């Protein structure tokens, strides 16, 4: 009850502050249009953001431990988050600055008009790509290598249960977590990428085919897709994976292939719908009619006339779909039917290390263990979406 009172009091204070601030701005600037026509809600928003910012700064400088010496995890995590944000922002800024001055004229020009978010996205994707490709060279140990040191804590400080040889610690059977994180990029990202490509190939070509030919084929494909979409995708995938694991038997790699196909087919239904909808808008264009009247074949119509015009929405969907596929694989691995051990995989890592989250109140550093893999997943998702947003913005602004 009192909390509600405090919150509503703070909101009212913001409102009053916003009104006052707008009033002051109006009088000091001599009623400039910017402040004169500012709605109260906008002024409230400014006041509210200022309040939040102040609260954040205050919280950041709270002591990290109580007087009794017990660490305050909330403050520590908040500090790490802020520091991480600043570091990433700076890195993106430096990366963009470098891009503006180094390299061929084309890429320099591209970097000049690039928002910081896109620079961050590109930087992250580059880093992930390098890590995934050169995982074997970068990782200090092999992904399946088992050491004689179980459950080493992260930090590398022997006084707090760490080991300088394993900066991020080891898991319950003694494998180096840093190496597994690096190899995870290769396995999880690589497989997700292949799966998404496959999903787009299946969904895209069938969707365009349905849009171009229409009639009974369109009905057949669309209703089929409806049926597939009616089943919750994760449960459906689990069901099929159970069957597949029976087929695969002891061949672990075969199970991964099955997984790629299963996820690709399930996700291709979403791509199909998009491709069909976009395609339907394009096939009514006069230039398609002109091509049909010229006597062009289906292949030319789909790949030369329709596809280039559907690329922008498909690309946006690719970014999003890649993230979903990636998360699906991670979820399946988390549930134990995805990428099979001993291959390192982020989803499996999150599952295996999940119980460490309980240590957050006593040892915040230990609690970061499951967060590392989860963070790697989150970071890539965010990065890909930033880049896709920027590409979309660019391609839609291309019309001048």
């Amino acid at each position, binding site marked *: 009850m009192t909390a509600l009172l405090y919150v509503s009091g703070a909101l009212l204070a913001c409102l009053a502050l916003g009104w006052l601030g707008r009033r002051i701005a109006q009088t000091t600037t001599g009623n400039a249009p910017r402040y004169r*026509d500012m709605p109260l809600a906008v002024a409230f928003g400014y006041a509210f953001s200022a309040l939040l910012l102040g609260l954040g700064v205050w919280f950041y400088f709270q002591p990290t431990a109580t007087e009794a010496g017990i660490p305050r995890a909330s403050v520590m995590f908040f500090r790490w988050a802020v520091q991480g944000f600043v570091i990433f922002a700076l890195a993106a800024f430096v990366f963009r600055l470098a891009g503006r001055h180094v390299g061929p004229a084309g890429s320099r020009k591209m970097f000049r008009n690039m928002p910081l978010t896109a620079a961050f996205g590109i930087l992250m994707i580059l880093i992930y790509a390098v890590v995934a490709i050169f995982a074997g060279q970068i990782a200090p140990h092999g992904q399946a290598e088992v050491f004689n040191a179980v459950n080493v804590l992260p930090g590398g400080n022997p006084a707090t249960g760490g080991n300088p040889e394993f900066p991020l610690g080891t898991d319950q059977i003694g494998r180096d977590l840093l190496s597994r994180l690096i190899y995870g990029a290769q396995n999880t990202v690589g497989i997700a990428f292949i799966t998404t490509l496959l999903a787009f190939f299946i969904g895209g070509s069938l969707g365009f085919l349905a849009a171009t030919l229409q009639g009974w084929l369109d009905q057949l494909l669309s209703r089929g897709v409806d049926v597939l979409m009616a089943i919750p995708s994760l449960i459906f995938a689990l069901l099929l994976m159970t069957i597949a694991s029976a087929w695969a038997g002891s061949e672990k790699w075969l199970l991964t292939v099955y997984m790629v196909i299963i996820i690709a087919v399930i996700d291709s239904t979403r791509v199909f719908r998009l491709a069909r909808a976009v395609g339907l808008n394009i096939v009514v*264009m*006069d230039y398609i*009619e*002109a091509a049909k*009247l010229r006597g062009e074949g289906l292949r030319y119509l789909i790949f030369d006339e329709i596809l*280039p015009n559907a*690329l922008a929405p498909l690309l946006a969907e690719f970014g999003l779909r890649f993230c979903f596929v990636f998360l699906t694989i991670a979820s399946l691995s988390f549930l134990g039917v995805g990428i099979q051990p001993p291959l390192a995989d982020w989803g499996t890592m999150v599952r295996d290390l999940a119980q460490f989250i309980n240590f957050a109140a006593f040892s915040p550093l230990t609690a970061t263990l499951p967060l590392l893999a989860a963070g790697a997943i989150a970071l890539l998702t965010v990065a890909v979406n930033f880049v896709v947003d920027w590409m979309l913005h660019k391609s839609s602004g*291309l019309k001048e």
Partner: protein
Amino acid sequence: MSRLLTINDLVLEGRSDESWSRIVNGVSLTLDKGEVLGLIGESGAGKSTVGLAAMGFTRDGVRIAGGSVEFDGIDLVNASANTKRNLLGKRIAYVAQSAAASFNPAHRLIDQHTEGPVVHGVMGRGESAEDGIELYRRLRLPNPEEIGFRYPHQVSGGQLQRAMTAMAMSCRPDLIIFDEPTTALDVTTQIEVLAAIRKIVEDFDTAAIYITHDLAVVAQMADRIKVLLKGDEVEEATTREMLDHPQEDYTKSLWAVREFQHAEKPLAPKGAVPVISVRNVTAGYGKIDVLQDVSFDIHEARTVAVVGESGSGKSTTARCITGLLPPRQGQILLDGEALPPDYRKRSKMQLRQVQMIYQMADTALNPRKTIAQIIGRPVQFYLGLRGKEKRRRVNELLEHIELDPAQFAGRLPGELSGGQKQRVGIARALAAEPKFIICDEVTSALDQLVAEGILRLLARLQDELQLSYMFITHDLATVRSIADEVVVMKDGVVVEQGPKTEMFTPPHHAYTDLLLSSVPEMDPDWLDKLLAERGVDNIGDAAVDKM
């Protein structure tokens, strides 16, 4: 008369990328109470932008960079959002070009009509609804008591435009901005809307700015005319003076546009085999017959104009000829031989002979392909040319359509102007080396000067390459300038056909007569004369309905 609106040295800037560039350079105008000012110019002249600025409003990405707009003593450039909110809709109203796109499709007409008066506190809802019905009656809408309770999609385009004018009138504003209110309408519909707008503006003594690119229309509506060109003022004079003694070269050229005349060609010899022969074609969609027993011939190197309102079956005829819509009955003959009804059954050779140029060059060219690719594809597809030979042929075609190959071959359609795009459309049709080209309203989306250029080009190509054209249009001025023969269609039936000279001299079929008489002329008294001659109930769609 008292001064209502004064615009002084107005400068508007538009944003492109990061910088601002001028789109209007210092236009000044004044408007008295009850006066109508016509603003004319090509697209891109800045007339709509000036019209909106007269309301103190700018579109996104446009800003007022200098000058003043003063409405009845109120400075609109520096007015606060609140002041403007109280003025717009109540004292200044706006009628947009496309009423269909401007009405909210989810609400009934009368509910949208009463919104302004209720918000501004001019009238209550019931009172305003009654007033709306009265306005509908004055604007001669059919069933005025009932039409307001329909949704926008249940009302025809011309009626919607009149309902929009009624809506603008709902608060009895002092000033209405009409932004090309009749451009998208058929001639017979246009004349009704014009008569309605003029009557209501006179009845309520409302001042208006009438924006259009059609000189004949503005001649009927405006007391004074101002000509704009690329954001600059060219000249201003009273309507009569402007029509009789234009001063500037640009204005004179606008006036002269309609004088282009393709030399008349002799009739085809008796017994000659027509290039395209439409024989008793009946066709339609679903169960409805859109075309009924349509027949006409098109001979070599001759142009046949197919004229009629929207919905008369002109474009459906074209679809039958191209094979997109197989006719239910009847045949299409090419050089005396029957073409398969479905385009998919036609041979490459047959497809090649029948080419098409579209109305909207924007949608007719693939926006992701360069001009060279667009023109090169039929060259490669039909003639099998590749590499250097293909490039040479493409350049040749570009020169044919008067575009510099070095400059245009590598561009995308988005980087071309409307007229240039239409030229590329022509080149694509020519690339197949056809005998026969269907031109579907090829000039109706273009400015008059540009349209004239296209017509001249088509005429020249016909003389050089002995092409036959089927020219679908609703613009009789175009027919006058380019056609050899005319086919008049109404409701899917050919009502009259014959050589052009015959068609333009009486006696006509009643419908042809109506069409011809509905085309505005460059005479300020034309509408008055017509109304006096025929009466308000015998013009436009009302007259069509009586047939």
